[in-house]
């Protein structure tokens, strides 16, 4: 079993190493001038250097504050509205058409309006992240909750659970896998959007670093924020996966 696991891990590492090797080869055989594609060693060295500098850590912190604030607001709103819409038909009648209209809207296009309304600081970026992460979470909560078997609700009622507790004791736990799936998609989208918002208008954050480096053609510095956001996304994804494993212990399939 463990050798099989090892083989799977090695197999997965192959294409990543392959990409790195091609990257290195392009540089060392002179196909790409270093001003257009810096060698990977240089980029990772620069990343290590930057991680030691306070300014860079400040930028990461700014990005993470926006990311977490936006994402958490989206989780609270998405799960709340999703559950409410699944349980109360009247709320459903209002929420459904609104979601139908707002979900396919490209939210980045709203960003200029958000800047005008909320200014250039944290608020406009957090709002954009919330808007973009909200709908996947809301929709999967809604479908998860409306898919709960009626029998479960009946048995809980028969066992003497008060009506108002059904939501928290039966429906929310039963919808949990679906909710967590939605959160994962919301998280990936949050990573993407916070970076874009910082690229459009910002004075700090990883996206701002990329734009600054692009304006001065510092190619090495352009790759560093990109790799950082990718690693950040991977780490958060891993954390969420761990949380999912923990919360869903005892569920038939994770």
């Amino acid at each position: 079993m463990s050798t099989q696991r090892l083989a799977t891990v090695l197999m997965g590492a192959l294409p990543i190493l392959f990409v790195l090797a091609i990257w290195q080869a392009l540089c060392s055989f002179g196909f790409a001038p270093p001003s257009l594609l810096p060698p990977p060693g240089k980029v990772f060295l620069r990343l290590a250097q930057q991680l030691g500098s306070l300014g860079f850590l400040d930028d990461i912190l700014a990005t993470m504050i926006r990311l977490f604030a936006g994402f958490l607001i989206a989780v609270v709103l998405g799960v709340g509205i999703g559950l409410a819409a699944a349980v109360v038909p009247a709320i459903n009648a209002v929420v459904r058409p609104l979601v139908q209209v707002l979900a396919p809207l490209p939210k980045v296009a709203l960003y200029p309006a958000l800047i005008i309304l909320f200014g250039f600081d944290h608020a406009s970026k957090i709002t954009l992240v919330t808007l973009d992460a909200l709908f996947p979470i809301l929709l999967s909560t809604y479908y998860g909750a409306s898919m709960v078997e009626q029998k479960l609700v009946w048995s809980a009622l028969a066992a003497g659970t008060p009506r108002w507790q059904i939501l928290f004791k039966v429906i929310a736990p039963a919808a949990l896998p679906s909710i967590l799936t939605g959160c994962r998609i919301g998280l990936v989208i949050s990573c993407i959007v916070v970076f874009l918002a910082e690229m459009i208008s910002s004075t700090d954050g990883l996206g701002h670093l990329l734009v600054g480096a692009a304006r001065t053609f510092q190619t090495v510095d352009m790759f560093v924020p990109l790799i950082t956001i990718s690693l950040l996304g991977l780490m958060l994804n891993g954390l969420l996966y761990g949380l999912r494993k923990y919360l869903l212990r005892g569920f038939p399939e994770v």
Partner: protein
Amino acid sequence: MTSARNIIATLSPLLACLGLLAVWQVVALWLDTESFPTAWHALQTVPQILGDPEQLLNILDSIRRMVIGFSLAVLISIPLGLAMGRSARVSAFFNPLLMMIYPVPKAALMPIIMLWLGVGDASKTLVIFLGVSLPVIYHSFQGAKAVEEKMLWSGAAMGLNGLQRMLRIVLPAALPEILTGCRTGLVLALITMVTSEMIARQSGAGNILFNAMDMAQYDTVFAMIIIIGALGIVLDAAFDKLRWRLVKWAEPHQEILLGAS
């Protein structure tokens, strides 16, 4: 009874639109600043933009790039996703790499890709292609993985070879899930389209939007937001119709817009 319900179902998104516009109007009147025009003003600017041949051409350019990038991504991602779903080896090979690329904002690659391919169509189409392909690969992967083993066995027993089984069993069975991925991809294509044009200010809808923003032409900004938003809603609705035709037989629970891991 059913027809009345149908009418309500078709009218309700329209009512939602009107409601949102009304809220906008009220907020704008209440704030009463020049930088936040009323919904009515913005709507009046829409025909001006669409009537200007240059602007219209710009927007059509955007749509062309999006269609090309989207189609290429779908054509390549579906076979890859299906192969990953049916073969543990292929999925073990590609999965970690794809997991690493997924959280990278594709439009953020724009400045780098611009250095290689220039500011023209090629780099923007490539970025849209990258943005669309990941969700499509993922959903095709999940869809193909969930196909019942028994159906494949029956197919094999009836003499279908590997390729035929892929085309006649796995593809139709995974289709609802694949289409869910395509819908997510469509939304992402629009987002990447706008942002790529925002970064490479050369042509397109995003270019008009953010140039107007920089020049403080707020009527144009909000009119462009309406146009891009309408584009998103119309494309999504059209895609939903197509999906409905293709997978009428599947249960309606597949409508999770950005769903499935």
